[in-house]
């Protein structure tokens, strides 16, 4: 080693600095100062609001949350000591979330793939795109009331059950799950479509140039690198499904307990009515019939935990998926 060159062992000779002096905020133009200040205020403000919600619910929730509530079925009783817990709404929430996401995600992904990778004739792709935008803009109460009319049609009797008069009841986990998939679909669709559009053309061409068909390229090259996008979209959709109250009230029957119909165990359950945590919270809020705010707080806290937990899990899964292929496959 030549003299004067630093020895590797003695590298940190000078103190390490991260940067140098910066321009002082005071010297900036008024407009720049204003935007800068607003950016800080908005960012911190949102943090405050978010933590306020979490802390409020945590305090109230933990105060009233008795583990017994999680495993007891609710029942209608004037005396709160006898009105049970929210086992059924908890199961209902998980069921509708799973059902809605399982229907929406594959549908959204293949639709996005068709629009971006095939998309011919172009007018048809345009119509598909517009339809999805329209669904995205439709309030869920409108989706719910449409769904009710839809699933009360005679041919959809297998999705729910016939009431004693012979009419189709139209309310069930299946009906609610299918309509809930509609409110999740646009989010997953948009995320997948944007992810596909961000993949450079030469990556597809690299596959075509090896003699691969379009469909082989989509399945083996494009979809694997879309995992994080699909996961993000699915999480957003999941959040909307879990939070949806209108569809539960109209299409799930919002019965306090999950009431399965006759049939095979799972099918019967899915054809029956039930409730979810949001409808339970509404029922027990001061505005609802139950009027047991303590239980509403406890249920709200559980709902929040579920949502946060799902977000974390999906982020985790997509990170594992992404690191398996390293990066989103979009570098260069």
């Amino acid at each position, binding site marked *: 080693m030549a003299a004067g060159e630093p020895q590797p062992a003695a590298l940190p000779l000078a103190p390490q600095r991260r940067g140098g002096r910066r321009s002082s905020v005071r010297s900036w133009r008024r407009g720049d100062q204003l935007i800068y200040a607003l950016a800080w205020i908005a960012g911190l403000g949102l943090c405050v609001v978010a933590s306020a919600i979490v802390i409020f619910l945590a305090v109230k929730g933990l105060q009233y949350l008795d583990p017994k509530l999680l495993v007891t079925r609710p029942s209608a009783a004037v005396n709160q000591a006898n009105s049970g817990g929210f086992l059924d709404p908890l199961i209902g929430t998980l069921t509708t979330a799973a059902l809605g996401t399982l229907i929406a995600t594959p549908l959204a992904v293949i639709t996005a793939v068709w629009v971006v990778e095939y998309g011919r004739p172009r007018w048809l792709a345009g119509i598909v795109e517009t339809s999805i935008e329209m669904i995205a803009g439709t309030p869920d109460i409108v989706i719910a009331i449409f769904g009710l009319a839809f699933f009360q049609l005679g041919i959809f009797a297998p999705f729910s059950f016939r009431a004693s008069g012979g009419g189709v009841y139209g309310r069930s986990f299946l009906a609610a799950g299918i309509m809930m998939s509609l409110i999740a679909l646009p989010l997953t669709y948009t995320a997948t479509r944007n992810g596909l559009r961000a993949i450079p053309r030469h990556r597809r061409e*690299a596959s075509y140039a090896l003699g691969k068909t379009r469909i082989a390229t989509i399945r083996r090259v494009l979809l694997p*690198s879309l995992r994080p996008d699909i996961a993000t979209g699915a999480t957003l959709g999941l959040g909307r499904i879990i939070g949806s109250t209108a569809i539960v009230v109209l299409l799930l029957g919002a019965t306090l307990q999950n009431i399965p119909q006759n049939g095979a165990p799972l099918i019967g359950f899915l054809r029956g009515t039930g409730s979810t945590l949001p409808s339970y919270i509404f029922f027990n809020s001061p505005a609802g019939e139950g009027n047991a705010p303590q239980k509403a707080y406890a249920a709200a806290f559980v709902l929040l935990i579920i949502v946060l937990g799902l977000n974390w899990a999906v982020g985790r899964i997509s990170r594992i998926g992404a690191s398996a292929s*390293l990066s989103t496959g979009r570098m260069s």
Partner: protein
Amino acid sequence: MGAEEPGLHAPCALAPQGKVGENVTMSINQLVFGPPAPLPMTSPPLRAVDTLTGPERMRLQDISVFYDGVAAVKQASLSIHKGEVLALIGPSGCGKTTLLRTLNRLTELTPNASHSGTITLDGDDIHELEDTKLRARVSMVFQQPNPFPMSIFDNVAFALREQSRRRPRRRELEPLVKQALQRAGLYEEVANNLDRPALRLSGGQQQRLCIARAIANNPEILLMDEPCSALDPRSTAVIEDLILQLRSDLAVVIVTHNLQQARRIADRVAFMYLGDLVELADARELFESPREERTREYIAGAFG
């Protein structure tokens, strides 16, 4: 400009090995201090490898390519032979990449593109072949190294897995993957872990992986669209060596902006200008005594 049969250019085989270093210095001097007074007549081609030109593989007859009816390539005719490196040079927008992409029908993927004329591969019209079959025989390496987001092994195996119902097992593919990586000069560097994500390789390694992927199926023709323009000089040198080795088995058609590179590796050079195939000649002839005025100007301008 008709198709020209390449002659053997013996002189380049005679270039003594010891001279190579000098020549490199010389061309750097040329770059720094401007062109030497006469066109570089004095500097022989840098390559000290004999040509290996074999039988004709592909023939283009009056090929024009249009985008929205506007010709990007005008009536180009040429032949491509096994064992040669054919370089397409010319200023940006002259149609050389379009011509290259027409050889494996990638231009078809552009909705507004159309063509006239015929291209044959071993006598068969390429537009009569199935696109996937054609592209398995005429494969391509791109400007940007673009490995797929999967393991090194899977990148090469992806090319090998036929469009068949049954997926071949890893055991069957392993020797073929290994062979392709060896031919691309990458095997030694990645042998210890073929399951590493391909995107973790360096840029030069990624490009060699793309070459391995492109030659895994033993194509007859390898198209290269400026394969070194995103790479540093050292990786470029490695890939140029590789191209010279590969051409013993197949025909290489390479688009390059780098005239020095064309001098170093090409057996024949085609100069394109505004969609015209202006001149097609043996590399030495084209660089040292171009017949066309436009070629002369381009080479002189680009050297200066």
